[in-house]
Structures are given as structure tokens and as C-alpha cells.
């Protein structure tokens, strides 16, 4: 049985294989750029397998431990694309390392495998294992620079990650204790028939749900579980920061949607309760992220807080999923579309920062002055991405916000959308400040800022994505809708 199901794991298995090949090759090969090439090849192969499975019917494998459905495949593809762009953008950065270049690439691949499993996991056990697999590789990657800040980042991430894991495990234990099941669909059956009329009737379930939300909330960096973000984002190697902010967050949202919607989606009062919980957390998260981002002087920290704010917008979608009670799939597909748009936009912004900061050797926004003259293409790309993060036309960010806010308004979350729109206005201030510094500031030197072809290629791909999603969103909306259709309704 199990062996015959292995072929449904080809995306993960092939990527794992390539990760091992990278580690082995590292022993023999002097020219380390080859390793990046092999890694990207692995990602492409895996993405090919993922695409090939798009049309296949939904199926649960390994005794319902993993689900093979379009929802998972959508996220797998997104994660693979993000990992590919990160590796492409890492080459210059990594070539400065004296040792362990092979390990760097391998760890990126392995954490990608972990995240892919996380998006497919349909059982509390497999969710936990996948979460740790992705987490541990990321802890190592965060401390990869081995300077003081990076080490601190890695250690903080590890310790707080351990706390979050403990919280999550406690929540899982409570849910398991109440239902006697670990598979999400089985939990759903039990919860639906529980003889209670509200969460307050069953404090253990309430605590379990809050602990689950907290554990996953750490992964997506929602307030008050976001404290690690600025320190880790600043200290970690910039490509890893980008990876954390996009891939790790996307995987986190995937698992939250699956756990809450599948296992805790019924009865309707339960769904509405956690919907409201996420709505309130969303309002706090985006407000805190935006307000604190305003006073940042370091662009990596600013983007860190900006990613907290973006998580807040994404949680508007999550809240919609809850309060919609499965009435329509707008919240879910909106969330997926927003993640797509956020992925290309944020990766683009970070890659531009990698390209610029690496050359001028500074992460301070003030040092970006006059970049429009010193590196016009990078400055154009960064401007485009920042404009998309604000949510202005003709970019992906606008459509994503329209999509998700429209869905929220439909389900009575007007107040949350008003908060979100005010927040978008606030965010324009600090995003545009960078634009202003780059284009209107006087350059500190006439020296051009060069960038490698790999960086330019990955940046161009991101910008292309930002524009495509913004100008012809139709087919991507269709993809997001197809991906959430598996949950019924």
C-alpha cells in the first residue's frame, strides 16, 4: 500500500534527493556555483512533478497523513518558485562564505521539503514533524553568517521556535485528548457532534484552539507572537530573511487554513469564533507592523515590520474564511492570491535590497540616497515592488488587496477592511520614503552599483510577476480558485 503511494510524493522525494546530491558534490567540487545550478535544477524537476500532478484527483496517502490535493500543490509550486528565486539571488552573497556553501544550498532545499510537507500534512503528527523539519533547517540558516548578529538571530529563532513548538504541541495534545483523533478529518467529525453550544462551554477546547493559533501564529508572525521577527530578519543572511518572510509565512498560512478550516470548520459558531479571533489579531498585527515600520532606519528591519503588516492583511483573508462558514471560497482563494502576489513582491523587494546592500555594505535607508542614479534598474525594480506592497496600480498588490478586502466586506468584516485601508495609507509613508530617498536624494558617490546577472534575472522574474498579477490577474485568480475548490463549497 504505502510503497504504491510513494510516487505521489515525487516532488518532495526528488528535491530531497537533489539536496543529498548537493551535499555530496560539495565534497568534490571546487567551483561552488555548480551547486547553485544543481539546486535550481532540483527545484525545477520538483516543480515539474508538482505541475504534472495538478490534474490528478485528490487523494490522502500514508493512512491520511498527507493530502495530495490542488491546495497543497499550489503551495508547493509557490514554495519551489520562492526557493528557486532565493537560490538564484543568493549566489553572490554565498560566494563570500569561506566554507559550507554546499550546506547552505542543501539546507534551503531541505527546509523547502519540510514546508512542502507542511502544506500537504493532514494529520497533527505529520504537521508537527513537517514543521520541525522546515524549522530546524531555518534555524541553522539564520545563523549562517556566524557573526554576532547572525548567531544571535539563529539562537533567538531556535529558542523562541522551541517555545512556539511546545505551545503548539500542547494545543495538539488538548485537541487530541478531547477528540481521541489526530487526523484532521476525523477531528472534524468529532468536533461537529460535540454536545456544546459555544467554546466557553468547553474551556479545554478553547485553550487548545488558542494554543494552536499561537503556535502557528509564531510561524506567520502575527502579534503577539511576532517579537522574534525584527531581530532575526536583521541578523540572518538577507536571502534567508527573504525566504523566511515569504516561504515560511506561506507554509504557515497553508497549514492554518487546512487545520482550522478542515478540522475546526464546523459547527458554524466555532468557525465564526476563530474567524473573529483572527480578525482581531489581524487588526492589531497590521497596525503594529505599520506603526513601528515608520520609525525604522534599517531597510531590513523596515521590511521585517512591513512583512508583519502584510501578514495582518493576509489574516483578513483568514478571518474571512472563518466568518464565511464555508458559504463561499472567496476568503480562501483571496488568501492564496494575496500570498502569490506577496511572494513575488516581497521577494523582489528583498532581492533588490540584497543587490544594493551587498555592494554599498549598508542596510541603512539613508545610504540608499541617489540610488536612482547609481543603479537605475535596481531602483526601478525596488520602486515597483514597494508600490506593489502599498497596493497601487498597476501592480499585484492592488489586485490582491481588492480581492481580499472585497471578500471580507461581503462577509460583514467592514470594520476590519476600514482598519486595513487606513493601514495601507500609513504604510505608503514608509514605503514611499525609500522611493523618495532613492530618486530625489543626491547620490553619495558617482560610483555605479553593479549587480550580477543572477540577481538581475531573479529580480526581473519577480517584477514580471508583480506586473503580470497586476495587469492580467484573470488566470491567476482562476488558479487560486481551482486550488481551494478541493475543500468543497
Amino acid at each position, binding site marked *: 500500500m504505502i510503497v504504491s503511494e510513494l510516487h505521489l510524493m515525487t516532488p518532495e522525494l526528488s528535491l530531497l534527493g537533489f539536496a543529498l546530491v548537493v551535499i555530496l558534490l560539495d565534497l568534490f567540487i571546487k567551483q561552488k556555483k555548480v551547486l547553485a545550478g544543481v539546486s535550481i535544477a532540483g527545484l525545477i524537476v520538483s516543480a515539474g512533478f508538482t505541475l504534472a500532478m495538478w490534474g490528478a484527483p485528490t487523494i490522502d496517502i500514508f493512512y491520511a497523513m498527507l493530502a495530495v490535493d490542488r491546495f497543497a500543490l499550489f503551495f508547493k509550486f509557490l514554495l519551489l518558485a520562492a526557493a528557486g528565486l532565493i537560490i538564484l539571488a543568493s549566489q553572490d552573497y554565498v560566494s563570500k562564505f569561506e566554507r559550507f556553501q554546499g550546506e547552505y544550498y542543501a539546507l534551503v532545499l531541505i527546509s523547502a521539503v519540510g514546508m512542502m510537507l507542511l502544506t500537504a500534512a493532514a494529520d497533527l503528527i505529520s504537521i508537527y514533524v513537517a514543521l520541525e523539519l522546515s524549522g530546524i533547517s531555518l534555524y541553522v540558516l539564520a545563523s549562517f553568517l556566524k557573526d554576532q548578529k547572525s548567531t544571535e538571530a539563529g539562537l*533567538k529563532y531556535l*529558542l*523562541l521556535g522551541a*517555545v*512556539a513548538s511546545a*505551545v503548539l504541541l500542547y494545543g495538539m495534545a488538548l485537541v487530541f485528548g478531547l477528540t481521541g483523533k489526530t487526523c484532521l478529518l476525523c477531528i472534524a467529525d468529532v468536533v461537529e457532534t460535540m454536545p456544546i453550544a*459555544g*467554546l*466557553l462551554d468547553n474551556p479545554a477546547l*478553547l*485553550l487548545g484552539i*488558542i*494554543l494552536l*493559533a*499561537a503556535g502557528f501564529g*509564531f510561524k506567520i508572525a502575527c*502579534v*503577539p*507572537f511576532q*517579537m*522574534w521577527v*525584527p*531581530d532575526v530578519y536583521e541578523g540572518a543572511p538577507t536571502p534567508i530573511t527573504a525566504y523566511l518572510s515569504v516561504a515560511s509565512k506561506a507554509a504557515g498560512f497553508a497549514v492554518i487554513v487546512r487545520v482550522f478550516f478542515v478540522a475546526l470548520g464546523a459547527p458554524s459558531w466555532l468557525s465564526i*469564533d476563530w474567524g473573529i*479571533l483572527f480578525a*482581531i489579531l489581524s487588526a492589531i498585527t497590521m497596525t*503594529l507592523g505599520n*506603526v*513601528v*515600520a*515608520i*520609525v525604522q532606519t534599517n531597510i531590513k528591519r523596515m521590511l521585517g515590520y512591513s512583512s508583519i503588516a502584510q501578514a495582518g492583511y493576509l489574516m483578513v483573508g483568514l478571518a474571512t474564511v472563518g466568518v464565511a462558514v464555508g458559504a*463561499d471560497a*472567496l476568503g480562501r482563494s*483571496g488568501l492564496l492570491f494575496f500570498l502569490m502576489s506577496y511572494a513575488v513582491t516581497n521577494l523582489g523587494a528583498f532581492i533588490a535590497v540584497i543587490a544594493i546592500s551587498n555592494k554599498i555594505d549598508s542596510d541603512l535607508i539613508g545610504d540608499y540616497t541617489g540610488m536612482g542614479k547609481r543603479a537605475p534598474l535596481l531602483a526601478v525594480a525596488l520602486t515597483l515592488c514597494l508600490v506593489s506592497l502599498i497596493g497601487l496600480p498597476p501592480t499585484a498588490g492592488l*489586485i490582491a488587496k*481588492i*480581492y481580499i478586502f*472585497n*471578500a471580507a466586506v*461581503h462577509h460583514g468584516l467592514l470594520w476590519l477592511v476600514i482598519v486595513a485601508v487606513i493601514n495601507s495609507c*500609513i504604510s505608503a509613508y514608509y514605503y514611499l520614503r525609500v522611493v523618495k530617498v532613492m530618486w530625489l536624494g543626491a547620490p553619495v558617490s558617482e560610483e555605479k552599483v553593479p549587480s550580477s546577472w543572477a540577481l538581475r534575472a531573479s529580480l526581473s522574474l519577480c517584477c514580471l510577476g508583480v506586473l503580470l498579477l497586476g495587469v*492580467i*490577474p*484573470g488566470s491567476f*485568480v482562476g488558479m487560486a480558485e481551482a486550488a481551494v475548490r478541493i475543500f468543497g463549497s
Partner: protein
Amino acid sequence: MTYHIPWIVFLLPLFSFIIISFILRPFLNYRPKLGGYVTIGAIGAACALSFWLLVEVLSAPGHKLEIPDIQWLLIGDLSIHIGLMVDALTAVMLIVVTIVSLTVQIYSQGYMHGDPGYHRYYAFMSLFTACMLGLVMADNLVFLYLFWEGVGLCSYLLIGFWFHRPAAADAAKKAFIVTRLGDFGFLAAILFLFYKTGTFDIGELHGLAIAGTLTGTTLTWVAIGIFAGAVGKSAQFPLHVWLPDAMEGPTPVSALIHAATMVAAGVFLVARFFPLFENSEMALTSVAVIGGFTAIFAATMGLVMTDIKRVLAYSTISQLGYMMLGLGAGGIAIGIFHLFNHAFFKALLFLGAGSVNHSTGTFDMREMGGLRKAMPWTYATFLIASLSIAGIWPLSGFWSKDEILVSSFANNPILFYLAMITVFMTAFYMFRAVFLTFGGEYRGGASSEHGSHGAHQLHESPKVMVIPLVVLAALSIFSGWLNVTGRFDEFLGHGEVHSFTQGFFGILTHPLPWISLILAGSGILLAYAMYSAKWLSAEAIGKAFSPFYALFSRKYWFDELYERVIVGRVLVDGLFAGCGFFDSRGVDGAVNGVADGTAAAGRALRQAQSGQLQVYAMAIAVGIVAIMVCFYLFG
């Protein structure tokens, strides 16, 4: 397949812009002419496809192509469509825009040769053309307004093309700001329309107006608002002041602006919304009156200008007045027919002026003269265009101007007499320009507008500039013949079709054409008498009519009125100062308060980010407890 053609027509120049701006950049240094080729290729293809569309529209039922909307975005029940419409009006405009643009682009290869901004020029020209094509094909008001502003933006960029010259930069700003005044009316009309009808779709709005749902004061106000936009763009009185200054742009840009793109947009706009105007007597009268008045008003200023481009600029304003008069008194077909003919001979006149400048290095007619021998092609084509604009049978200008005169005669005698006087003036100032420029002896020269030619020889322009002139000259003769049989009228709306010979010669059996021909002839004769044969002294006449001369040559002091009185006194000293006070005390206070508050909150919250791990872990625990407590308190 036909459905895609309008999109391709629009996208071709747009992609040309994108390709030149973003993709060709690295190669431009060693392939300096690439930008021009890309633009010409794109617009040439768009032109060919426009003819295809014209043929399709001719055979389509109701002269309207059904182009399915493209659903741009569908989220739940939120559905956003984008679409283009191609009807007879659009088809005609497509032909005008693409032909004029194509000839201008070809000509520019010679004219802009060696300019350091060669590629920037072609990139903007492509974008300009794309915006105008989008404008004429837009099927909803949002799209239309978008391209309307796009056209304004491109004209700003191109008028100010030589931005290092203060005059050019000022002219660009003036054009942008003055047209903005009209745009405000247009935008208000759009919003008001949407508020009243709930639709942006032009076809639906037409339907509402025709069905009589949209009537009364609402309709009148909407029509007046739309017309305000047209007044700004088409440089009608009192927003005409920007167009003469717009001469600061490169001459081919002026040709494009005056013939096919910017100013034609205003006339097109009125024609596009003609069903709305038709149902409002007052709106239609306003269009006719403003048009008729502008026609003669601008012509008087054209009489005395010494700069050849300024003469042409005032003649454009005057001719646009004719078009508005035609629309207001006669209908779409008459106004657009004049736009159609005017596009070709006005483009030709400007390109001719550019050709003259290429040789002499000046636009001042007092420093020209005698170019007839040195520049035979330029002279011949310029002469044809002048005869055409003067309305001499059987050139194109005659046919459309005659229709306007006939319709205004039937409609409003005062406007008819004004239009008749304008015919005389038009002939006079155009031939004054012809005789001053090409007749007599050469009187010197100065440095060219794009770099000094030094002590140069008079010479005919290169072939790449002459060929577009010849093509346009042919069109200036023949384009008017399209309506000799009445086919053009029939295509754009109504009208009876008769045989070509009957129309071609039969028209001379009526008295009205003879009167206008005599007036035009006497205008030419007077110009000949004053500037060629010197039977009359221009100086003496100028002295005799010195108050008028001053009035005309100082442009009725409109610039002074606007700049010193309205802008200086009313706006800067009055309104702006008041607003500034309110802004600095009231608004700034509130904004700064909010901003300071937010920043202070940010700083305070940042304190919480102490970097201490214990604090972070504690936050997680406290957060969980707080959520739990909240559930019990509010839950």
C-alpha cells in the same frame, strides 16, 4: 480575428514605447536609428490595420463592430470589464491618427537627426500615439478619461522636450495646467453621469440619451462639462492660450498635436458624446457659439504674427473653432469631416514650416523670403496646403468648410457672417505666410531650433522629410473628395449619396460656395498686394489700424489677464494665500499631530523590542493568556 485587431492597433505603439524605453536601451548607443525604425514599424502596421478596420466597419451592420468585452477581473460577483468600441467615428479617427502619426514619424527621422534625445523623442511619440488610439477606441468613460489624461501627459512631455530651455518648460507647464481646467469640468461631468446613471459605458449612455431617460438640466450640465474638457484640449476660447506657446516643442510634435492627437481629442470628445449634445439645445448652441467665436477671434491674431509657427497655431485654433461650429450647427459628420481634412493639410503646413526651419534655422518670417527656388518641394506642398486651408475649390478644405458654412447659414446667421469673415482672414494670413516665406528675396537667417547650422546654404530638406510632405499634399487635395458623393456623411450618420460629377461640379451652381470662394480669393489677392507685389504698404496699413494691430499682436492681452490678474492677484495673493494660511495653521497642525502621534507610538512600541529573549517568550505566554481572558470577558 477581427476582434483582436483593435487591441493590436492600440498595443503596437504601446509596445513600441515599452521596447524603446526598457529593452532597446543598451543597444541604442551603437544603433542610433533603431528607435525610429521601431516606432515607424509599429505605427505603420497600426495604420495598415486601421484601414482593415475601416473596411470591416464599412461592411458591418450599422457601421459598428461588435467587439466582445474582455473580462479583466472576476472575483466573486465583482466583475471588471475592459473593452474597445469601433464605430464609424472611431474608424475615421483611427485613419487620421495613424496616417498623420506615420508621416510625422518618418519625417522626424530627418528632422530630429542627431538630437541627443532621439530615442526619448520616439518613445514619447509612440506613447502619444498609443494614448490617442486608446482614446478614440475606449468604450467606457474610465478608459476614455485615462487616455485623455495620457494624451495630456504626453503633450506635456513633448512640448517640454527640450526641457533645458526655460521657454519650453514653461510652455509645457502652461499646456498642462490650462487643459487641466477643462479636464476638471470633464471629470465632474463623468462623476455626475455615473452618479445619475450608474454606468460608465459609452454605448449605454448613448442609449439613455436617445431613449430620453437622460434629459433636462442634468443632460445640459453633463454636456457642458464634457464640452469644458473639449474646450481645454481643443484650445477653444477662453482656454486657447496654451496652444500658441506649445510651439516650443519640436516642430513634428506640433504637427502631431495640431493635426491628429491632442487638439483633435476635444473635437472627437464632443462627437463621441453627440447623442447627449443633440438632446440639449443649450449645449449644442454653446458648442456652435464658442466655436464660431473662436474661429474669428483666433484668425484676427493670426493676421499679425511674424513667427510662421504662431500663424499656424492661431490658424489651428481658428479651424478647430470651425469644427466646433460644424458640430454645433450641423452634426457629427460635418465637424469630423473638417477634422479629417484639416489633419492632413495642417500636418503638412507644420512639417513644411519645419522643413523651412531645417534650411533657414528660423521661424521668423521676416528673416525668410525667396525660399521658392531653394526649396521647390517644400514650396509646392506648402502652397497646396495653403490653398486647401483657404478653401479653394476643389481642394479638400473647400468641401468641409463649405458644409460648415451651409449648416451655419441655416442655423444661425450671426455665426454664418462671422464664419464668412473668417474665410477671408484665413486666406489672407495663410498667403501672407506663403509670400513672406517663399516669395521675394532671402532676408537672412538665424540659428536652427536644434543646434546651429552655422553659416549655411539654403537647401531642400532630405528625401525622408520631403516624401511625407508629398504624401500629405496628395491627401490635402483628395481627402475632401470622399464626401463629394455624400458617402462620408452617410458613413458617419445620415446623408444622401449622389454621383461624383454631380457633387464635384454641381456645387458650383449654388451661390454660397461662390461667395466664400470670392472672399478667399480676395484674401489671397490682398496678401499678394501687400507682401508680394507691394502695391500696398504693410507698414502703412499697420499704422492706420494701429489699435487693432496692437490688440491682435498682443493677443487681446489674454496672457496678461490670466497671468497677472487672475493668477497673480486673484489666485496667488487671494485664494492661495488664504489656503496657505489655512493649510499651515489648520491642516498642517492636524496632520503633524497625527503624524507625530503615529511616530511617537512607533518609538514607544519600539522600546518593547528590547532584544531580550525572555521578554519575547513572555510576550507569547502573556498573549495566550490575554486572548483566553478576552474570550471569557467578551465571548
